[in-house]
């Protein structure tokens, strides 16, 4: 089943022509942003420098840090009056990255989500429970409007109260659910504890954090569903950039909207199909915030063979990150954000370690920080208060609950070369 068959199956010359036209348009659109205007001018580049979609390689990269430095609206290519919504995503220090949408952008995004949901066999007959955060996180409203557009009955259940979520699935005859894979496994466990089942549910759409094939098998067998991987990032609308079809063998990246490359993250050199590297995306239809060769940081590869479903280019499921970004319960966390908070608290030293574990299928982050001998009062109360204060400040900065442990001065490892302050102990499940 197709939502937008023409675009979903566009191949060869037709696709190249469309991509070329849209790439040239994107460059002119990007020139309305001082950041791009200066960069392109410095290298003597313009839309006229582009003759084939592959010429995108001539363009300079755009990094997440560039977006952060233009906080809040520096990357908007349209006047404020044309922006109808913003979302935010966590940045590397303190400030988030703001992404903006025109009315046309929102429609394009909803179209992509509708393609994805149709691709996995959902129809207007289905009932869709959207069990993700509905705030500034793109996963909530993004899926909501896409699912509405394709005509499903949408239950904006958001997160929390797992028993109530389960009740809704059964009472409303929910056939498909969208949430993080970690939360899906938590729901599974609660279902089993309650001694109930979810007979109406048949499709799970899981994203916002990396998950393994083992986890897929676990979810599929315990919930009796088909589980599909959803990929995206706020900088490229949000979820919906690439999505699995019923073959469950790689994610189709929508080539009419995104020009994708795989590069060697160290050299920036373009890699061929089957070669593992960093995914770089150039938007082809974004009005409010066009992005040229955006470094996603995600490690994957382009799959070589054609997919029997008839759609175009596929990327492998995300294999890791080229930077140190962590995804904790669907929220992006950079160790530098943690460092930023800790350095602002003079009662603790500047050495810290971050441990990530998965307990009851939910990500838990523990931060060990050395207490500062100079400010040690000798009393326990002060230390307990300090620990609480650090947790609160981290929560403010990361929107995540963390466990903070004060440790003895000098007890944490010192690094001579590149510091390895993050220990991710999450296994496959």
């Amino acid at each position, binding site marked *: 089943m197709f939502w937008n068959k023409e675009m979903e199956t566009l191949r060869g010359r037709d696709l190249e022509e469309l991509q070329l036209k849209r790439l040239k348009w994107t460059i002119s659109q990007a020139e309305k942003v001082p950041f791009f205007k200066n960069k392109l001018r410095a290298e003597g580049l313009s839309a006229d420098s582009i003759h084939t979609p592959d010429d995108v390689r001539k363009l300079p990269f755009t990094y997440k840090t560039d977006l952060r430095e233009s906080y809040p609206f520096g990357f908007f290519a349209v006047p404020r009056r044309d922006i109808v919504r913003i979302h935010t995503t966590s940045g590397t220090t303190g400030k988030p990255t703001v992404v903006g949408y025109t009315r046309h952008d929102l429609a394009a995004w909803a179209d992509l989500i509708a393609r994805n949901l149709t691709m996995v066999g959902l129809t207007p007959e289905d009932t869709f429970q959207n069990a993700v955060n509905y705030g500034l996180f793109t996963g909530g409203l993004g899926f909501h409007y896409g699912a509405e557009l394709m005509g499903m009955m949408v239950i904006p259940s958001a997160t929390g109260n797992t028993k109530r979520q389960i009740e809704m699935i059964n009472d409303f005859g929910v056939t498909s659910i969208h949430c993080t894979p970690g939360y899906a496994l938590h729901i599974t466990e609660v279902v089993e504890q309650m001694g109930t089942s979810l007979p109406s549910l048949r499709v799970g759409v899981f994203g916002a954090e990396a998950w393994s094939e083992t986890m897929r098998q676990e979810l599929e067998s315990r919930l009796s569903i088909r589980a599909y991987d959803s990929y995206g990032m706020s900088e490229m609308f949000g979820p919906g950039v690439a999505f699995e079809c019923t073959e469950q063998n790689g994610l189709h990246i929508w080539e009419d909207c995104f020009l994708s490359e795989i590069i060697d993250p160290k050299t920036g050199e373009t890699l061929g199909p089957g070669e593992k590297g960093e995914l770089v995306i150039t938007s082809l239809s974004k009005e409010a915030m066009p992005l040229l060769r955006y470094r996603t940081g995600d490690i994957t590869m382009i799959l070589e063979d054609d997919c029997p479903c008839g759609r175009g280019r596929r990327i492998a499921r995300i294999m890791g990150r080229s930077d140190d970004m962590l995804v904790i319960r669907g929220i992006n966390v950079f160790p530098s954000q943690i460092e930023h908070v800790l350095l602002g608290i003079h009662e603790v030293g500047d050495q810290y370690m971050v441990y990530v574990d998965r307990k009851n299928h939910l990500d838990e982050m523990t931060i060990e920080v050395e*207490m*500062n*001998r100079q400010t*040690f*009062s*000798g*009393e*326990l109360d002060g*230390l*307990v208060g300090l*620990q609480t204060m650090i947790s609160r400040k981290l929560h403010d900065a990361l929107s995540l609950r963390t466990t903070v*442990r*004060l*440790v*003895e*001065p*000098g*007890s944490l490892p010192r690094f001579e070369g590149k510091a390895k302050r993050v220990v991710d102990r999450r296994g496959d499940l």
Partner: protein
Amino acid sequence: MQGEYIINQISIFSENKPGRLAAIAEALEKSHVNIYAFSIAEANSFGVVRALVDKPDDARSVLEKLGFAVQFTDVIAVRMKDQPGGLHEVAQILGDAGINIEYAYAYSGKEAAVLILRVSQAGEAISKIQAAGGSLLRESDLG
């Protein structure tokens, strides 16, 4: 006058994991520091080891050399009869004097049992305890 009854307790930050107390005790042994009394206060993952010792300055410097975070804390020490009712008698005095205790621990010394108290206003507590008939120890009286 009251100052002579204020005693330096040594407070040591310690993670709550095996071997930490042994490390502290070994350091004190090696520098020939005698411990009169000690207690451990703990929160989730860490605690504070509190001790009264014969050479607080030596103890502090050897522990700091090992990397421990160490602080002196003012406490006061009250004599108790080492017999049934000894604690009651002293506790009554504290209660009558309206002294609020942040924490306390005790040891049984050669001459008498001793109750060590951490109070918010040490000077005021000393006067009140004396007025109520309690007997306080100087640092040199410990042991």
